[in-house]
């Protein structure tokens, strides 16, 4: 019997408490480093960063968009589980929700550090400009975070000790009962905030690198962002699940569940990357020339912003994982599945990088200069902070909450 075993889910084995605490301590060190950097930014201001008037978006804004895309597994898995009624996914939905919760809470924290006057953050809600993509992001992001809390709370209430409290038990039970409604609301909100994040650079008609035509008020990137989050978010959920399995040295989810999610993800990714290719082609040969630019100009200044980024995003981290995931044989082979989910997760991050940070780099006025930016240590630490926080929350949740319903069956305790 371990010190805290009364808190573990029924019928599962966990590492010893001292071992767990060593892990927590290591992660805490990184966390404290990140918190220190964040506090510096809050108290001393954004002069702690290497941003400037040309390059006004920081590394952490990329991280913000990337984690929101990667956290897209929560809304899309929820959508498939509760609305499309893919029942098998109930065995992975808890983890998708937890990962989503981590990603979205991190995103909120990052936004809180990123703004110059954090105490005025509420202006975005109170004095909302409904024409701004950022307003849409803020509203839908915050509302969806509430939905994620609602989805995560029942999981917390399922802790063996908390569940003994009748009110908590009933509350968790009732929340499960109407989870489909919350999931539907979450899917609705997610479509809009993922999309409006795509719209953030898509509407910038003064910045031809990011600007996209579109339909009605939405640029094409609006739809592409939602699509790519739905495609790559579940890949990240699978990736973190497999990492957790590798670290805990036990199988937590049955292969058929992973296979189903990977297959859907694969087809989403395959269709997305075709649409992305068409979008890129249209941008390069229609949109940009109409503004007086040659598309190659945007990749011409330095190796860092070279055309390799297009190849990496669309071919290596787009078509390759898509094909690996839609092909039954490679999807069901462990090594190729690993490659596919890693590439897909990298791909969506590269896409967010290109469409948010790279937009800042090329000059628009013909006599202007390129802008390059190397983040300061404060920015790096603040960007790593959510990773440490995420690892810690996963460690605690995995230890004390029944996240994987199939764990007991797959790992019977024999003593």
């Amino acid at each position: 019997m371990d010190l805290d075993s009364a808190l573990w889910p029924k019928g599962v084995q966990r590492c010893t408490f001292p071992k767990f605490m060593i892990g927590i301590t290591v992660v805490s060190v990184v966390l404290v480093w990140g918190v220190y950097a964040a506090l510096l930014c809050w108290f001393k201001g954004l002069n702690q960063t290497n941003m400037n008037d040309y390059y006004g978006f920081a590394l952490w804004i990329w991280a913000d968009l990337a984690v929101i895309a990667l956290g897209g597994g929560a809304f899309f898995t929820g959508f498939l589980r509760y609305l499309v009624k893919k029942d098998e996914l109930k065995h992975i939905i808890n983890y998708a929700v937890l990962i989503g919760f981590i990603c979205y809470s991190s995103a909120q924290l990052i936004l809180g550090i990123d703004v110059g006057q954090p105490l005025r953050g509420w202006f975005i809600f109170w004095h909302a400009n409904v024409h701004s993509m950022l307003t849409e992001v803020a509203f839908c992001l915050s509302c969806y975070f509430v939905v994620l809390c609602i989805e995560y709370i029942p999981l917390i209430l399922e802790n063996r000790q908390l569940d003994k409290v009748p009110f908590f038990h009933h509350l968790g039970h009732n929340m499960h009962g109407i989870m489909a409604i919350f999931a539907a609301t979450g899917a609705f909100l997610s479509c809009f905030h993922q999309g409006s994040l795509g719209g953030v650079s898509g509407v910038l008609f003064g910045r031809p690198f990011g600007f996209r035509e579109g339909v009605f008020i939405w640029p094409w990137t609006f739809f592409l962002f939602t699509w790519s989050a739905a495609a790559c978010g579940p890949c990240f959920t699978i990736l973190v699940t497999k990492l957790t399995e590798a670290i805990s040295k036990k199988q937590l989810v049955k292969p058929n569940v992973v296979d189903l999610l990977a297959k859907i993800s694969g087809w989403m990714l395959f269709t997305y990357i075709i649409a992305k290719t068409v979008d890129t082609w249209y941008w390069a040969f229609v949109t940009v020339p109409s503004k007086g630019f040659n598309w190659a100009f945007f990749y011409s200044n330095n190796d860092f912003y070279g055309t390799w980024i297009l190849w990496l995003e669309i071919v290596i981290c787009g078509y390759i994982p898509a094909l690996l995931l839609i092909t039954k044989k490679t999807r069901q082979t462990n090594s190729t599945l690993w490659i596919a989910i890693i590439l897909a997760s990298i791909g969506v991050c590269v896409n967010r990088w290109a469409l948010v940070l790279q937009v800042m780099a090329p000059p628009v006025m013909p006599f202007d200069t390129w802008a390059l930016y190397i983040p300061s240590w404060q920015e790096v630490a603040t960007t790593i902070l959510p990773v440490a926080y995420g690892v810690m929350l996963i460690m605690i949740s995995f230890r004390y909450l029944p996240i994987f319903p199939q764990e007991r069956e797959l790992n019977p305790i024999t003593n």
Partner: protein
Amino acid sequence: MFPFSFEWAWDMSHIVFMGGLWYALSIIGAGLTYCIIKAAVDTLKGDAGTGDHH
């Protein structure tokens, strides 16, 4: 966000945007209220408070 803030205008963009927002918030709020009230009622009824959620 509210009709009494001076930026507010009764135009289509505000109606669609804020309509969607308040609709979503109402569903979340109503759902949560229902869960809490029902949990309180169930608890007062004296259900055992055990068993699986799924």
